[in-house]
């Protein structure tokens, strides 16, 4: 029997495809942009302050004459990479602890649920700020803080779906037949959870990128001269009348990035 591609991707509407295309385009720019037009995101040239586009800087220059093309490409590598690292860590932790809670039950589960509920009651930005104050290095601080915030959502989802799946007759039968936990996870749990995981991961990445940009914008996150989206906006804000396009560059890039992730997530968080 032949399976049509449509059959294999039952939940892949138009919005998701647009989001995926948008993200691939941004990734291509972030990786290949600096190779296409060689340059340095840190090289200053006050002669070119706020100058328009030229061959070495296709998006023009910022207030210190640095090439916005290269700064944007660097910024689009920095926060998405931190966000992806945090989401990967959070997904692993959430998945592991969620399965542990569902499989063990009792006090293990209760303690984990109480911890998750307490974390959920605290604003994510607050936790990130505290971890940033504790950890040395801003990038590792963001990674640790965001992981701490994001694992809760993965944990809740995993626990909820693992509980119902583990209690199902199919899993009981598999265990009676002597299959191991790895097999049960692969055949019974993962297919149930995978679509939700993608949605949660996309939302988590968007949340992380927003948090990094927001803290950069209020000057408590990344510090100059690091090229970062929120920081670029606040640096270029005073010159918006002289160079509106320069300010628009990081604004539009952030919007496209977050729109791509929102569309890829599909639907809204329940």
């Amino acid at each position, binding site marked *: 029997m032949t399976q049509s591609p449509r059959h294999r991707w039952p939940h892949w509407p138009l919005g998701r495809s647009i989001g995926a295309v948008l993200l691939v385009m941004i990734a291509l720019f972030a990786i290949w942009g600096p190779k296409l037009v060689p340059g340095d995101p840190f090289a200053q040239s006050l002669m070119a302050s706020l100058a328009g586009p030229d061959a070495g800087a296709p998006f023009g220059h910022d207030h210190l004459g640095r090439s916005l093309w290269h700064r944007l490409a660097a910024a689009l590598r920095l926060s998405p990479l931190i966000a992806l690292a945090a989401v990967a860590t959070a997904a692993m932790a959430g998945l592991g602890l969620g399965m542990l809670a569902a499989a063990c039950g009792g006090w293990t589960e209760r303690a984990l649920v109480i911890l998750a509920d307490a974390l959920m*009651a*605290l604003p*994510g930005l*607050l936790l990130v700020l*505290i971890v940033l104050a504790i950890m040395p290095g801003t990038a590792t601080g963001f990674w640790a803080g965001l992981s701490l915030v994001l694992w809760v959502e993965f944990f809740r989802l995993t626990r909820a779906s693992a509980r119902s799946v583990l209690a199902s007759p199919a899993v009981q039968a598999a265990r009676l037949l002597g299959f191991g936990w790895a097999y049960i996870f692969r055949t019974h749990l993962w297919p149930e959870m995978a679509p939700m995981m993608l949605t949660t991961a996309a939302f988590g990445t968007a949340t992380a990128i*927003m948090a990094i940009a927001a803290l950069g*914008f209020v000057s408590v996150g990344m510090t100059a001269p690091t090229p970062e989206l929120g920081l670029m906006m606040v640096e270029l804000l005073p010159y918006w009348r002289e160079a509106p396009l320069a300010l628009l560059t990081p604004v539009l890039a952030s*919007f496209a990035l*977050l729109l791509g992730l929102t569309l890829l997530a599909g639907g*809204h968080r329940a």
Partner: protein
Amino acid sequence: MNMLVARLVQALAVALLVGAATFAMMRSLPGDAAWRIAAGRYGYDNVTAAAADAVHAELGLGGPWLPAFAQWMGDLLRLDFGVSLVSGQPVLQEIAHQLGASLWLALAAVGLSLLIGPPLGILAGLRPGGWLDQSLLLVSTALKAVPQFLMALILILVLSVQWGWLPAAGYGTARHFILPALALGLGLAAVNARIARDAMARIAAMPFYHFARWKGLSRRQVLWRHGLRNVAVPLLTYLGLQFVLLVEGVVVIESIVGWPGIGHALVHAVFSRDVPMVQGTALVLGLGFVLVNALIDLALVRIDPRKAQ
């Protein structure tokens, strides 16, 4: 009753978590905390080694950590937050002073989002697939991709700098409320509208809804008597969960427009390593979430008595 016990446990866990996090922050401040605190108190140009030593001794920054942690948590559970390391004022007094401004801003934002989002969502949900539904989906998807700080930036540039309608920053009169409340409320409204739309579409397709129409009630009567109450349940539940998002927004927006609230104070406290202030504000925000959600739990039972069982 069970629900309230669960919320109480959550509140305790929040207090423990905040205590542990701020203790860790106090103990592992990079650089010499005493210098930073002294700088916060006396100004960066007036810090001397003697001033830093005095601060160091006063706060007991050395010593073993276990007794210090026990004392830290003891103080926390007795609701003794101590004094701000920067201003020297009691933390509770500072927070009480700032909380009002933040509460008003948050209320204005939620009120605005409820005025915009749910009515549009309900209208869209009554005709799924119609032009309003389609355009609402488009607008709310776009709005969700605009972080609150970016919304504030756009509103400031358009409404106050370009057109000069509203003050860009400041606090005091009703005019100052509009811009930050809009920056916060539009994002919330985008999500509210989607929740209301999905709930309305689901409820309008149910047999009881058709039955109400069939027994002769007008569209308006069915919506008022049977529709709205059912839509309110997911909407309120989500509003409680959104509280955290709202608080995060308040923290960022207050810092941008210079609003003298708790979020602004929190960012400053983190920046100058004023740990008692961080602890106090974090605790107020976390317990605020628990309180709001406990009230919403109670309200939900009144709206939907099936939830009591």
